[in-house]
């Protein structure tokens, strides 16, 4: 079932990214969670696994936007996002023969890309080591609670720079789930498969991410335009 905070008909699902409309609408995916977005991609995938370069190029075309956008939102830097996207597809090329179809290809590819992004974050000096750690931020990194005193609410208009800054300030695990769900439009069951966590954990991480963003945006709702 869909997340009412993200109305089904408003999911951000770009054309040609391998997702079907039912999935975009937040309903259980019509395709099997398995293998590919449809017979066409299954055929392309099979040819790519057999070493067909043209088919691999088609896979790139199908998935490049979501992989690049994931990298871009995770690292916040265009050049770095390009490098990470390149590395993700190079690894895909090396490992595509090992894809057995036990999960959706998109899920498998995203998991591969997520691991590359996490390794990059570790190289940059963040303390992340594994997906498990990404999914379990330190207690002090959790969002504030909202009991008792009246809160200052968001005005309804959120500035892009402020949101970018707030997202960049999230612990990596929160950021991952927020990007995968609210930006890329994945469902919790898909995210759970990508991150090897429970669906409940995915829901919880997303909620904490939104709460933490709320705290950050109320503290600093707008960034002044810089000359």
């Amino acid at each position, binding site marked *: 079932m869909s997340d009412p905070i993200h109305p089904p008909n408003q999911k951000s699902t770009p054309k040609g990214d391998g997702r079907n409309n039912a999935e975009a609408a937040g309903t259980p995916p019509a395709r099997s969670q398995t293998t590919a977005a449809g017979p066409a991609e299954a055929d392309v995938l099979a040819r790519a696994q057999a070493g067909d370069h043209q088919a691999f190029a088609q896979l790139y075309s199908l998935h490049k936007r979501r992989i690049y956008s994931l990298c871009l939102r995770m690292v916040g830097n265009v050049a770095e996002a390009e490098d990470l996207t390149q590395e993700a597809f190079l690894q895909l090329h090396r490992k595509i023969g090992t*894809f057995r179809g036990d999960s959706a290809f998109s899920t498998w590819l995203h998991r591969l890309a997520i691991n590359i992004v996490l390794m990059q974050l570790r190289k940059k000096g963040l303390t992340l080591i594994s997906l498990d750690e990404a999914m379990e931020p330190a207690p002090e990194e959790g969002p504030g609670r909202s009991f008792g005193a009246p809160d200052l609410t968001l005005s309804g208009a959120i500035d892009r720079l402020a*949101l970018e800054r707030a997202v960049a300030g999230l612990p990596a695990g929160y950021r991952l789930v927020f990007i995968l769900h609210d930006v890329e439009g994945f469902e919790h069951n898909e995210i759970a498969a990508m991150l090897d966590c429970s669906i409940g954990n995915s829901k919880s991480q997303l909620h904490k991410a939104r709460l933490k963003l709320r705290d950050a945006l109320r503290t600093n709702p707008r960034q002044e335009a810089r000359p």
Partner: protein
Amino acid sequence: MTDRPGDMSCEEFQSQLPELIGSGKVAANHPHLKDCALCQALLADLETIAEAARQLFPIEDPPPKLWEKIESALKNEEESGVDGSGEPESGPERPEGEEDSGAGPEKPKE
């Protein structure tokens, strides 16, 4: 923590919010919200944030030159005979103690 209509405190309601929202139940119709401005505001803010993410963070295309770079790198790998599939550094991160099959992001259990 204050008792609210529907026999639920704000803390209890908010503790249920991840599941209420994530499971697709209509949290806005929850009895607790009828007389709780605090939780109404919280839910409205969460909706605003989710909507802002969709509006302000579109899925973006990588530059066309990126495919050229990938093609070039693939060609170099093929010419040098690099496979890479067995290289530890190219494998996915795994939690410590978890078996790594070296087979990419496929979960070992599957």
